[in-house]
């Protein structure tokens, strides 16, 4: 048992480190290192331009989408090499946030279901950041019940007599839709069969006529998510991924990747809290010396550490060529709730002034308030705490699924509260 690289891994790490050292935008390092939670990264320069520049540089040197095959713009690297890259890229990886969905979910799905020609057309620009992708799955009526989606796709003829689909409906929680060139879209093509059976997956040009994007303002004032409306949007049948009615199976490819990418290396806010406690005074002296503070810190320290080493165990599995399973759901489950508690406690430590949300007055405050306002989203996005507990109970512990009243019921006969 050790944390050491194998000789191959060490050599790879050295190569990565050297390249990053020579090429990373060092002028942004400080800003990226302190960028608050959900604060949207750099402000000194146009974040999108900075992201695209860094991604392009990586792509040209063969450091984009390391785990993808070379011919599609990747490097054909092993999963562990991808992890090493991430460790070395460090704060600069924040620049790639805008590409995560495309690289982590859309790309793999295209690779599994698109035609060879489509892969050669779409994957390289996705890898290099020249084209941005988004994922159009969630719907207002869907939520945790993802398969409850209603966006309709109906067959039609194109002007030139080809096969088209006409899309009508609404998606929600679409990250980065406003920047996206392409989107991965799941639709309902048959409402008369049980809900998982009537779904079909497509990809489309986000600039197609009839696509309307509206940002969703979140509690923390950010608008990373969008609503996307579809009105008689045309998609050629050639852009269908998988069989008609096979959309659910296709989506699982995508979602498995989502939970993994979201679940790994989640922040709990503990290092920030520990740092605060080492600087701030309570009635009992330095906070970190206050026994009341210590007993709380200890539990959080163990969660932070437990997540870290659970992650290391997953990496070790990767390094052995195994695929980490649903047990990784614990990352987000533990991190989300922990951060919410830590943020509230950090404000408490600053007494009355804990309410102030002005970085000029207290940078720490602003940071923990950002956590307080961001963590509720963490506990919901990509699977609520409750869904994650179900996943652990069912897929890890083998307990029965919830009683399904909508099982085998034709979709259009399932009771609903209507779109919101």
């Amino acid at each position, binding site marked *: 048992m050790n944390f050491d690289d194998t000789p191959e891994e060490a050599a790879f790490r050295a190569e990565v480190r050297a390249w990053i050292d020579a090429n990373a935008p060092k002028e942004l390092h400080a800003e990226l290192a302190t960028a608050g939670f959900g604060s949207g990264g750099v402000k000194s320069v146009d974040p999108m331009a900075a992201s695209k520049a860094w991604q392009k540089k990586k792509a040209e040197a063969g450091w984009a989408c390391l785990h993808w095959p070379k011919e599609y713009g990747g490097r054909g690297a092993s999963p562990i090499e991808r992890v090493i890259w991430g460790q070395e890229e460090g704060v600069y990886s924040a620049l790639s946030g805008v590409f995560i969905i495309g690289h982590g979910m859309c790309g793999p799905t295209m690779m599994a279901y698109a035609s060879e020609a489509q892969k050669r057309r779409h994957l390289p620009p996705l890898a290099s950041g020249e084209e941005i992708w988004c994922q159009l799955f*969630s719907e207002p*009526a869907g*939520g*945790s*019940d993802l398969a*409850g989606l209603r966006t309709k796709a109906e067959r039609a003829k194109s002007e030139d007599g080809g096969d088209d689909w006409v899309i009508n409906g609404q998606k*929600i*929680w679409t990250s980065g839709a406003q920047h996206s060139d392409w989107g991965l879209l799941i639709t309902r093509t048959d409402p008369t069969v049980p809900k998982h059976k009537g779904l079909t997956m497509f990809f489309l040009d986000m600039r197609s006529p009839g696509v309307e994007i509206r940002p*969703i*303002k*979140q*509690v*923390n*004032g950010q608008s990373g998510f969008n609503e996307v409306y579809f009105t008689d949007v045309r998609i050629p049948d050639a852009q269908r991924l998988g069989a008609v009615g096979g959309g659910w199976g296709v989506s699982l490819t995508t979602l498995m990747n989502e939970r993994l990418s979201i679940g790994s290396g989640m922040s709990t806010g503990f290092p920030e809290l520990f740092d605060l406690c080492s600087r*701030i*005074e*309570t*009635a009992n002296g330095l906070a970190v010396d206050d026994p*009341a503070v210590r007993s709380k810190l200890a539990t959080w320290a163990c969660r932070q550490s437990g997540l870290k080493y659970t992650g290391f165990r997953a990496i070790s599995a990767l390094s052995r060529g195994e695929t980490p399973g649903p047990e990784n759901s614990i990352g987000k489950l533990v991190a989300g709730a922990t951060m*919410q508690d830590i943020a*509230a406690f950090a*404000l*408490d*430590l*600053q*007494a*009355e*002034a*804990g*309410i*102030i*949300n*002005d970085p000029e*007055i*207290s940078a*720490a*405050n602003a940071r923990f*308030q950002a956590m*307080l*306002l961001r963590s*509720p*989203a963490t*506990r*919901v*996005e990509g699977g*609520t*705490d*409750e869904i994650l*507990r179900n996943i652990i109970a069912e897929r890890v512990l083998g307990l029965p699924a*919830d009683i*399904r*009243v*909508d099982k085998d*019921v034709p979709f259009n006969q*399932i*009771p*609903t*509260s209507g779109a*919101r």
Partner: protein
Amino acid sequence: MNFEFSDEQKQLGTEARRFLEAKCPPKAVRAVLEGAQPFDRELWKGLAEMGFLGVAVPEAYGGLGAGYLELCVVAEEMGRVIAPVPFSSSVFLATEFLLVAGSEAQKQAWLPKLCSGEAIGTFALAEGVGAATPRTLKAAVNGGTLTGTKLPVADGDIADFVIVAARSAPGSDERGISLYIVDLHGAGVTREPVATIDPSRSHARLTFQDAPAELLGAAGEGWSILSQVYDRAAILTAFEQVGGSDRALEMARDYALERMAFGRPIGSFQAVKHMLADMYVSATLARSNGYYGAWALSTGAAELPEAAATARVSATQAFQHCSKNNIQVHGGMGFTWAFDCHLYYRRSNLLALNLGPLSQWEDKLISRLRARNAA
């Protein structure tokens, strides 16, 4: 045993609720949150007309001359609608400071204006990050003028006068602290609004440079008066928090009943049912502890300090718990700006700190329990 509000008191609560549901819908809170104005002037005027700004103030000073039980009932309703007005600053603090320590002249000067809403008062203790103690306070009064900075001060940008805890004598013990009334329209006062976790309630930084300051209560008594008034305010605030907890629980319950997933209301899933049951439990414990505080406050019982800390800790935990899980029950919608969940989440975190943090009150509670057991 009659550990319940009287029918008259409940009737007052019903009136207050009817009034506030009409005059203080969520969009009124949002208007302030989104910066249209620092507080809801219309609502404030209405509260004054209803007499709610002077519920527990003797009629001689322009109040209703009702008691603290009546004020608790009104406070709960204010908390239910998270009213965007300086109620806590003006009624729970400024008014109580005057009633507890004010000279006859000071009461005559300010109480009628506070009851009529003509004047807004507030209180200033904190001086930036960290707990404010007799040792840490820097703001000082010399020769009748105050110099120093107070941050944050609730409603400091809209109040007409502020009661300030400041150093009146050197040394680090509490006898060096006294209270002063400062006219915020007077000389030597600078106010700057500061952003907080809950923009639906305005806060400011007050900077005093040789500002005329009038002693309130005996010199050197500041800290002990403050502690008495904070106990009263803690109980009144607890009712605000209890009202907020109940409303957050209702919002979650209603959404759980209406929102369908997997072909059934999400409120039929045990995960959601039990989350709501646990919210009900903490809201109920907080309410019962609030009643204990209300009883102590209205009777001036010896248990007041202990009851105040109990009510405060219990209500703070309940409101934070209910407002947090209200968001969780609402799922993705819960953290959108458009839904009202965050208004309650913000307010619960504001109220958790505005009279000193939870950890301080936990400590007070045990000191006081211990003192009583020792006695």
